[in-house]
């Protein structure tokens, strides 16, 4: 029965606005409508998805539409989840549209229950239970409650490998991430069955065999069964090894660009070798990397084994150079405080030129050597719309280099070090590195200003000067008791002689004077008698440094090797020279760089020349303490000074003019998931001694002090923190030993 609509009333609205309803209802006042139009109107209103049910009724000529809004979610809370964090679950919930304030749909809730259950099953928690419930609240709101019972994880009782002839079960099981339960697996939970880990292990098994020439290797079946009490899991793997293939011939196909002879040099395998997938993949990468250097960044090489008879296979490397690639733009992101040109000047790859994978990779290492970044990643991205342009994107994660750092350091030998150091590597935005610092501690009061322009020319010719004033009370550092005041300045230059070596040189002037302390040792008094107590020395110094270290901070590969010479030129009060030679080698044991062997050596020798027979005692080398031979008190090694007559305390250290020092370290992964980019733990063996040829304390092997122990380093925002536990091995009675040593604010 038709009727003309006098008015439309909507009942039951709460959060939805009336306007939305009226606009969704294709019915106007004064219109004639019948059952059919009414039904369509309601259908279109329903499509808005805002209402759970809609009824229409008539009161005279007034159409009354009663709606019930879908409830909105007022709160979500989750209980009982331990192995999947709450916010991961919350993300999954909001992903599925279940979020505070959103409209609630029951169907999505059930789907979500299944989703969470499945992720628990994937973790091997077979008897997990997930119960989602929605509780009605007044004003059409709903509170969602998610009760999770994770149940226990089925532990692997037994993994049985069948069909392996050439390799034993134990050898293969070692490759597996999954392990059978034992007392230590409760720590690593390696015995917790999870399907992904099993497929991961099967993949490792496959590549293990393929890397040893078993081309036809196949896993026939991997059956998983669970005990009736659902506590234990049994895995049985049936594999078919197939024959081991050796290489019959190696050939190259395709456009070789640099000629077959050049590429052959990169192929170490030859006829008769056992075929190995890992080696062939590595060779393909080497070949495409070589082409990358010629500008073919899109080069693609793949190795195809063709099994022949007699278990041999011919290996063919198909080379497709693709088009010559050019770099359009080099972009940096993440350098929120480091200037653009500080990064760009390290690039050896230019924009608007041939893309060379070599240079792109080398530029990444140079960024890492700066020591400003915790991590540097590079990505070569093809430019859409062209087939030969790429953009190179470097993303860096900055490390607190402390452009303004008030550091409170403490080291045992010089007590609390209060220091304010401002170093800004682009002072006033000019790219120059300027730092000035004041450090006060019990034994040392020093102030220094230094200015260095690292890139005076674009090739890295550097120029700079530095001024310093320092007052050291050696008594405090329990070195023989005298005070030394020094001030002076230096003018420095430097330039790279090749991509890894730098030559630095410069001139300097230092004025130093000595004051006797309370019980000044005999040697000091003799020196002052012979030479007087204040000197003007003019220095000429030069240093040669080569470094291929892969990171500026906490390197794991490469070596650094430096030699420098300071000479007080004729015309100085004390003509002497002082030379030091340092080496530092890192040999990564594992490919991931988590285990590294490090060897460090330091030699120093100083002597007078012209009418001076020995170097001044205050320029002596010292050994012992953190940063030198750990386990012995700082500066305590070497022949002691002879005491003044009435000084009955044990004689003070006096150092010497010949320093020999070295240490061997085994760096191991930081336990408890420490971040290996800013933390380092290592076992070490230190050895060292300082001799004094001028006082007849000639170098002798049995005088060298040894110690061993474990050290920890951590680059914190305040500065590097380090401590070590060392056990002296061959200390002499008069040595002062110190098992625990630490320092904050000094890098070593």
């Amino acid at each position, binding site marked *: 029965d038709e009727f003309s609509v006098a008015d439309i009333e909507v009942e039951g609205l709460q959060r939805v606005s009336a306007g939305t309803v009226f606009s969704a209802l294709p019915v106007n006042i004064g219109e004639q409508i019948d059952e059919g139009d009414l039904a369509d109107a309601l259908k279109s209103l329903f499509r808005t998805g805002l209402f759970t049910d809609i009824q229409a009724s008539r009161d005279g000529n007034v159409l009354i539409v009663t709606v019930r809004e879908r409830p909105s979610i007022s709160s979500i809370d989750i209980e009982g989840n331990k192995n999947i964090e709450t916010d991961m679950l919350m993300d999954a919930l909001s992903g599925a549209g279940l979020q505070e304030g959103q409209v609630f749909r029951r169907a999505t809730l059930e789907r979500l229950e299944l989703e969470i259950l499945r992720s628990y099953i994937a973790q091997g928690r077979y008897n997990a239970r997930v119960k989602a419930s929605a509780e009605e609240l007044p004003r059409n*709101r709903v509170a969602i409650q998610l009760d999770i019972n994770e149940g226990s994880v089925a532990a692997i009782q037994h993994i049985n490998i069948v069909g392996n002839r050439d390799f034993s079960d134990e050898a293969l099981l070692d490759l597996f991430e999954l392990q059978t339960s034992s007392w230590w697996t409760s720590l690593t939970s390696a015995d917790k069955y999870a399907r992904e880990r099993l497929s991961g292990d099967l993949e490792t098994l496959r590549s293990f065999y393929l890397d040893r020439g078993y081309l036809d290797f196949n896993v026939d079946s991997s059956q998983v069964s669970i005990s009736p009490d659902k506590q234990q899991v049994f895995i049985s793997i049936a594999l078919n090894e197939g024959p081991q293939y050796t290489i019959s011939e190696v050939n190259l196909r395709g456009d070789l660009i640099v000629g077959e002879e050049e590429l052959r040099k990169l192929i170490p395998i030859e006829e008769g070798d056992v075929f190995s997938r890992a080696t062939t993949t590595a060779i393909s990468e080497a070949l495409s990397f070589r082409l990358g250097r010629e500008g073919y960044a899109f080069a693609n090489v793949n190795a195809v084994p063709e099994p022949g008879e007699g278990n041999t296979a011919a290996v063919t490397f198909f080379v497709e150079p693709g088009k010559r690639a050019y770099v359009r733009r080099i972009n940096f992101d993440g350098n*929120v405080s480091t200037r*653009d040109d500080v990064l760009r000047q390290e690039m050896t790859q230019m924009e608007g030129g041939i893309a060379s994978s070599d240079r792109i990779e080398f530029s990444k290492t140079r960024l890492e050597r700066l020591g400003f970044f915790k991590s540097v990643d590079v990505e070569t991205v093809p430019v859409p719309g062209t087939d030969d342009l790429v953009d190179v994107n470097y993303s860096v994660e900055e490390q607190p280099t402390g452009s303004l750092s008030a550091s409170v350091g403490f080291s045992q030998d010089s007590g609390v070090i209060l220091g304010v150091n401002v170093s800004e590597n682009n002072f006033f935005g000019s790219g120059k590195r300027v730092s000035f610092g004041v450090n006060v501690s019990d034994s040392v009061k020093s102030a220094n200003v230094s200015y260095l322009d690292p890139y005076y020319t674009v090739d890295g010719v550097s120029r700079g000067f530095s001024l310093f004033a320092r007052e050291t009370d050696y008594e405090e550092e329990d070195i023989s008791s005298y005070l030394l005041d020094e001030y002076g300045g230096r003018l420095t230059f430097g330039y790279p002689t090749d991509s890894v070596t730098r030559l630095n040189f410069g001139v300097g002037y230092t004025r130093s004077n000595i004051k006797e302390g309370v019980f000044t040792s005999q040697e000091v008094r003799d020196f002052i008698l012979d030479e007087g107590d204040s000197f003007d020395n003019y220095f000429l110094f030069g240093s040669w440094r080569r470094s291929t270290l892969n990171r500026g901070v906490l390197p794991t590969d490469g070596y650094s090797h430096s030699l420098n010479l300071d000479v007080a030129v004729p015309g100085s009060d004390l003509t002497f020279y002082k030379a030091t030679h340092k080496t530092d080698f890192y040999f990564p044991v594992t490919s991931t760089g988590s285990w590294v062997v490090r060897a460090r050596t330091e030699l120093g020798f100083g002597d007078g020349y012209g009418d001076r027979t020995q170097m001044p005692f205050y320029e002596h080398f010292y050994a012992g303490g953190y940063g030198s031979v750990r386990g012995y008190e700082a500066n305590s090694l070497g022949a002691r000074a002879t005491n003044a007559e009435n000084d009955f305390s044990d004689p003070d250290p006096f150092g010497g003019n010949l320093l020999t020092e070295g240490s061997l370290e085994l760096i191991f992964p930081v336990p408890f998931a420490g971040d290996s980019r800013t933390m380092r733990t290592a076992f070490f063996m230190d050895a060292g001694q300082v001799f004094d040829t001028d006082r007849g304390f000639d170098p002798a092997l049995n005088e060298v002090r040894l110690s061993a122990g474990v050290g920890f380093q951590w680059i914190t925002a305040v500065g590097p923190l380090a401590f070590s536990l060392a056990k002296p091995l061959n200390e002499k009675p008069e040595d002062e030993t110190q098992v625990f040593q630490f320092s904050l604010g000094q890098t070593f």
Partner: protein
Amino acid sequence: CASNQQEEVLPEKTYYENAREAMNSGNFNEAEENLNALETYYPFGRYAEQAQLDLIFARYQNLDLEGSRAAADRFLRLNPQSDHADYALYMRGLASYNLDIGLAARYFPVDVGARDPGEQRQAFRDFSELLNRYPESEYVADARQRMVAIRNRMAELEIFAARYYVKRNAYVAANNRARYVVENFPTTPSVEEALVIMAETFRALELPKDSQDAVALLKKNFPDSNAFNQRGEFQANLLNAESRSLSNVVTFGLIGDD
């Protein structure tokens, strides 16, 4: 089991007044607490919309820019047709704009221009959404001006790289960076230097016609640029091959040039 102790729930109006008072007296922590309480106990009360709006402001003043941005998102999601959505959008943009500028960079003379703009790109997107959806909003003028600043900064970054490539004698790279500014940021002040670099690099690459085109463009748009001498001729010499010899550096430029 975890039974959260029942803290006694205050009436809606009291929470709101406490929050307001705290905000006026600058104690934004307390303000935030009250606003959160209002949210939890009266999610659909009369003050709900106002509380969510104030939360954006309170968190920003607490220097929790990330939190302020999240509060703005939440307001926009829960009150799509609110007639104060423009304020939420503006605050969202403002939070992104200042997210990366550390405290030091605001006061110390660190040349902000030469660094990764980071979240300012997101700020640009937020502000343009504000301009498109609420052209009459009172925050539009400030948002627009900040967009101009962000765009100028992006252009400056290009020029910065171009200057380096000039020093590096990589003239194609410098030219492309300069061209990128002319082609993509034609209304930024950096266009002037871009045209000078283009003219010089084309000259260095011995392409006179294109160098003239660039000079003509410069003349037309920047007649009184100081790249022209009094007689109006183009005479910038950006590319004086800065001597890079060692001896020159050591002797502070006295001895010549190898």
